[in-house]
C-alpha cells in the first residue's frame, strides 16, 4: 500500500501529467537551455533537486505558514535551494556555471516548482512531497533531454560534447537558436499527446490515463497552468 502511491505519482509526473507535455509549465527554460546536452542535464538536475527539496521543506512546515503569506514563504524556500545550487555549481563546475549564466538563478521562476509546492506539497506529507518533486523534475528532465539530443545532434553534430557526426557534416545553425526549440517542443508535445490519447481510442475502455484527474495530486490540475513568463 505504501508503494503504490509512489508508483502512481511517478507515472503521473513522468508521463500522464508531465509538467511540459500536459501542464505546459517551465516552457521558458525549455526554450533557453536545451541546445547543449551537458548544460541541459545540469540545469534540469538543478530544477529536479530544487523541486524535490523545496516540496519537502514546504510540506514539512506547511502547518506553520500562515495561509495569506504562503506564496512568499514558498518563494523564499525555493530561492534558498536555488542559491545553494548556484553556489555548488560555481564551486565545482565553474565553466558550466558561466555558460548557464542567469538561467541557474532563474530556476526560481520555473513554474513547475511553484506548481508542485502549491498543488501537492501544501496538501501532502513531506516524504511523498519530496518524491513528487523529484519525479516532476524527472519528467521535466526527460523532455528537455530529448529536445537537447535533437538540438545538439543537429546543431553541433555531437552528443554530450562528443562528436558523433562525420567530418563533412553541416551543422544546422537554427537548431542552436531559440526558434528551433519552439517548433521542436511543439512537435514533441504533439507526438506525446498522440501517444497518450491513442490507447484510449483504440481500446475503447477507460484506462486510468487521460482527462480525469487521478486521486493523488488532483490539486495539481488546478495549480497555476499559465505559461512561464
Amino acid at each position: 500500500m505504501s508503494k503504490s502511491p509512489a508508483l502512481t505519482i511517478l507515472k503521473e509526473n513522468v508521463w500522464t501529467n508531465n509538467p511540459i507535455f500536459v501542464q505546459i509549465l517551465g516552457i521558458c527554460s525549455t526554450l533557453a537551455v536545451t541546445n547543449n546536452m551537458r548544460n541541459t542535464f545540469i540545469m534540469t538536475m538543478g530544477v529536479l533537486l530544487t523541486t524535490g527539496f523545496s516540496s519537502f521543506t514546504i510540506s514539512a512546515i506547511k502547518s506553520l505558514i500562515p495561509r495569506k503569506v504562503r506564496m512568499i514563504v514558498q518563494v523564499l524556500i525555493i530561492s534558498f535551494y536555488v542559491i545553494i545550487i548556484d553556489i555548488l555549481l560555481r564551486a565545482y563546475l565553474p565553466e558550466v556555471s558561466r555558460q548557464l549564466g542567469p538561467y541557474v538563478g532563474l530556476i526560481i521562476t520555473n513554474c513547475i516548482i511553484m506548481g508542485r509546492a502549491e498543488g501537492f506539497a501544501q496538501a501532502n506529507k513531506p516524504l511523498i512531497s519530496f518524491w513528487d518533486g523529484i519525479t516532476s523534475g524527472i519528467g521535466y528532465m526527460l523532455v528537455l533531454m530529448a529536445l537537447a539530443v535533437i538540438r545538439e545532434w543537429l546543431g553541433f553534430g555531437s552528443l554530450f560534447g562528443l562528436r558523433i557526426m562525420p567530418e563533412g557534416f553541416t551543422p544546422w545553425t537554427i537548431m542552436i537558436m531559440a526558434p528551433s526549440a519552439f517548433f521542436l517542443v511543439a512537435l514533441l508535445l504533439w507526438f506525446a499527446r498522440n501517444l497518450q490519447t491513442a490507447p484510449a481510442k483504440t481500446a475503447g475502455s477507460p484506462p486510468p490515463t487521460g482527462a480525469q484527474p487521478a486521486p493523488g495530486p488532483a490539486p495539481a490540475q488546478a495549480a497555476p497552468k499559465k505559461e512561464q513568463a
Partner: protein
Amino acid sequence: MFQKQIMMRRVLYALLPIALFSVWLYGPRVLLVLAVSLGGGILTEFLFEKKKGGKVSEAVLVTSTLFALSMPPAVPLWIVLVGIVFAVFMAKEVFGGFGRNIFNPAIAGRLFVYISFAGLLTASFYAPGNFGAAAGNLFGKVDALTSATPLAVMRDGGSEPLLNLLFGTRSGSIGESSVILILVAAIYLIATKTAQWRLMLSTVIGAVVPTAIFWFAGVPRALPPQALLAGSFLFITVFMSTDPVSAPKKPASQWYYGLLIGLVVAIIRTFSGSFPEGTSFALLFGNTFASLFDKIVNDLAKRKKEKAAAAKAAASAPAAGSASTQGAGK
C-alpha cells in the same frame, strides 16, 4: 490524385519560362533541384492528406517550384529536401493543409534552410550563362567558382550593370534573376486575375519610396534604388506576396500589407549586417500581420456601417415621427 486548382496552374504556367531560362543560366542542375523539391513536397503532402483522406493540392506544386527557384544554383540537394519537407510539413500541413496556413510555405522553408545553413548557401552562388557552362562543368562541384551576388557587390560599394540586372545575367538564386520574365509573368497573372495587382503595386511602392529616401538622404550603407532589381525582391513580390492564402483579403488591408513588406525590405537591406537580402523576412513579417490587417479593416467598416445605420435611424426617426403626426393631423 491532385485537386484541380486553376489558379495554381496559372501560376505554374507563369513560372515555366522562368524555370526554362534558369536552366539556360545555370545548367541542367536546376532540373535536378526542381525534381527533388517537387518530389519532396508532393510526398510530404501526400502522406498527410492520405491520413485525412484528402487530395494533394496543386498548390504544393507551386510551393515546391517557388522553393526550388529561390535556392542558390549550387545548393546541395539534401538541403533542398530538408527545406521543402519543412516548408510543406511545418508551414502548411501542421496548420491544416491548403488554405489554412498563416505563412507562405515556400518562404518559410527557404528561411529555414537559409538560417540553418547560411554559410553553405551563400557560398552556393555561381556565375550564370550558357547552361551553367560559365561555371565550369554541368553537374560537378562548383564551390570554387562562387560568385558574389549583385546585392553583396553593391553593399561593398560596387555596381552591377543595369542591363545585366534586367536580363538576369547576374548571379543569384535560380529563378529570381530575370526581371523581364518576371514582369511578363506578373502581367499574365494580373491579366488572368490570378494575382492581385494591388499586392504587387503596394509592395513595390512600399520598397521604392523608403529605398529612395534612404539613398538620397545619404544614409550610410544605403543601397541604390536599382538594388531592388537585384536579389529576390521582384520574384517574391510577384509570386509570393500575392499568395492568395497568406495575403490579406480586403483591398484596404492589401495596401497596408504590401507597404509593410516593402518598408521592411528597405529597412533590412539598408541596416541589417548579416542578411543583405531581406525580402523573405519581410514577407513572413507581412504574413504575420495579414489577418490582423483584415480584421482591423473589417472592424472599421463595421463600425462605419453601424454609425451610418445609427445616423440613418436617427434621421429617419423624426421623419417617421412627423409623418405619423401628419397622418394624425389629417
